[in-house]
């Protein structure tokens, strides 16, 4: 209602000699300066406006509640995780992130003044889908400054790979405002490489190992040694046998997935874990969706209901 007020362009009382052969019309500009004043708005209009806002807010909450319920129906353990309750209580529509508190300082050790920059070299011929999914989860949790570069060793990188980390950040010059830097370089490398802390760490090779690192920034591994190792074992299986293996090995993995998913809703027990994320991406990437058995199909749908996999699906199209 508060608009910029324009002064009258011309005076209201200019005398003009009008011909008498025309109708006379009352001056339509006569009551200037009274209607535009915010103080003079009818209180009834204000009340109406407040009511409309209230109705919109209620509708919005209702929509979130229905979406949450829809997830409960189609996802095995949605009633256990925080998705539904959080979408009911808060109005943010962002998808769920992982349970458990993780804090960058406790995870990475407190290093005053050091900026945390993750640099990943990846080959555009084999886009690391898991890492893109984990990147988008990280961006929901932390303030991440993401950039994509192309190394001189490759040419003709498709546009969807150049924009795979989302739009360029407006404040990219102010690195200290971000908690994490994530730089993806498309490069002619045989395997995904990550460089994090050059002084104390060797370069980490293999998408599986980078994925483990990124996931630990989001949520801790299960505290039970057997479950934690089960997660690692599925991650290895996904990359070694689904992505790099022969057709026979892929079929064997699909059978193993099927029997594991017959016992539990998710691969490593009652909760979603890195195992589900990597296996989902690798099943999609290896093109085994159509040949997947029943439990795997059901689990693929459950994964999709979680809504993490936007970046992966975008690249596969």
């Amino acid at each position, binding site marked *: 209602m508060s608009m910029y007020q324009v002064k009258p362009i011309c005076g209201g009382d200019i005398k003009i000699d009008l011909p008498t052969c025309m109708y006379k019309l009352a001056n339509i500009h006569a009551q200037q300066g009274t209607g535009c004043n915010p103080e003079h708005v009818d209180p009834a209009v204000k009340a109406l406006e407040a009511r409309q806002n209230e109705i919109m807010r209620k509708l919005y909450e209702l929509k979130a509640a229905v979406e949450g319920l829809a997830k409960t129906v189609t996802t095995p353990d949605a009633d256990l995780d925080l998705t539904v309750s959080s979408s009911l209580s808060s109005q943010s529509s962002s998808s769920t992130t992982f349970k458990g508190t993780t804090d960058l300082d406790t995870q990475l*050790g407190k290093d005053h003044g050091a900026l945390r920059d993750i640099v990943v070299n990846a080959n555009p011929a084999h886009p690391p889908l898991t890492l893109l999914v984990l990147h988008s989860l990280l961006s929901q949790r932390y303030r991440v400054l993401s950039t994509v570069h192309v190394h001189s060793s490759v040419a003709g990188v498709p546009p969807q790979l150049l924009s795979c980390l989302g739009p360029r950040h407006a404040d990219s010059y102010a690195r200290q405002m971000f908690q994490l830097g994530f730089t993806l370089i498309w490069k002619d490398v045989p395997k995904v490489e990550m460089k994090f802390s050059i002084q104390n*760490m060797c370069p980490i090779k293999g998408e599986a190992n980078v994925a*483990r690192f990124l996931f630990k920034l989001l949520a801790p591994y299960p505290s039970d040694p*057997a479950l934690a190792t089960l997660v690692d*074992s599925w991650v290895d299986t996904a990359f*070694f046998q689904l992505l790099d293996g022969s057709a026979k090995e892929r079929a064997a993995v699909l059978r193993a997935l099927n029997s594991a998913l017959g016992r539990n809703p998710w691969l490593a027990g009652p909760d979603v874990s890195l195992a589900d994320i990597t296996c989902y991406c690798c099943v999609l990437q290896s093109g085994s969706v159509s040949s997947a058995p029943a439990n795997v199909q059901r689990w693929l749908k459950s994964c999709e209901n979680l809504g993490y996999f936007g970046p992966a699906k975008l690249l596969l199209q």
Partner: protein
Amino acid sequence: MALNLTINTNNLPLGALLAAEHVKDSVPVSVEEGKDNRLHVSDAIQFNDVNSISRYLARLAPALGLYGSNMMEQTEIDHWLEFSARHLCGQPGLAEALGELDLALSLRTFLVGHAVTLADLSVWAALKGHEGWPSQGKSFSHINRWFSFLSSQVPFSAVGNKYANKKA
């Protein structure tokens, strides 16, 4: 209850045996010979590959620090576990892999951190079991230093005498 590790004598899981040897004071593991490598945890969970078996044993005895003391060390250990499985157990490209390993060891006593970890166990085991290692290893001084340093330690020499020599 003691854990039961079944080993395949034709395809010895040296890395897993080394891990079992390291943790034996806190986690007793009985070893028996069989058709394939398998660590039976429960009816629902058993691990068949060397890396998973080693990881599980290391996690059962966190005080030993075999899986590193922080997240960055764990990530490096994951890197070396995959490195030994992919580049040191297959024949082609051994020289290139050894070059990379030599470079990594040039300023280090142990592969990760300042103590023995799964990374040392799995890379040592892969080299010990590799037919090409003794002949190709001459020119890599850092690997040689590290390899013979570890070989002289008790768990390594115990496993080496008990299993690796039996194969020859």
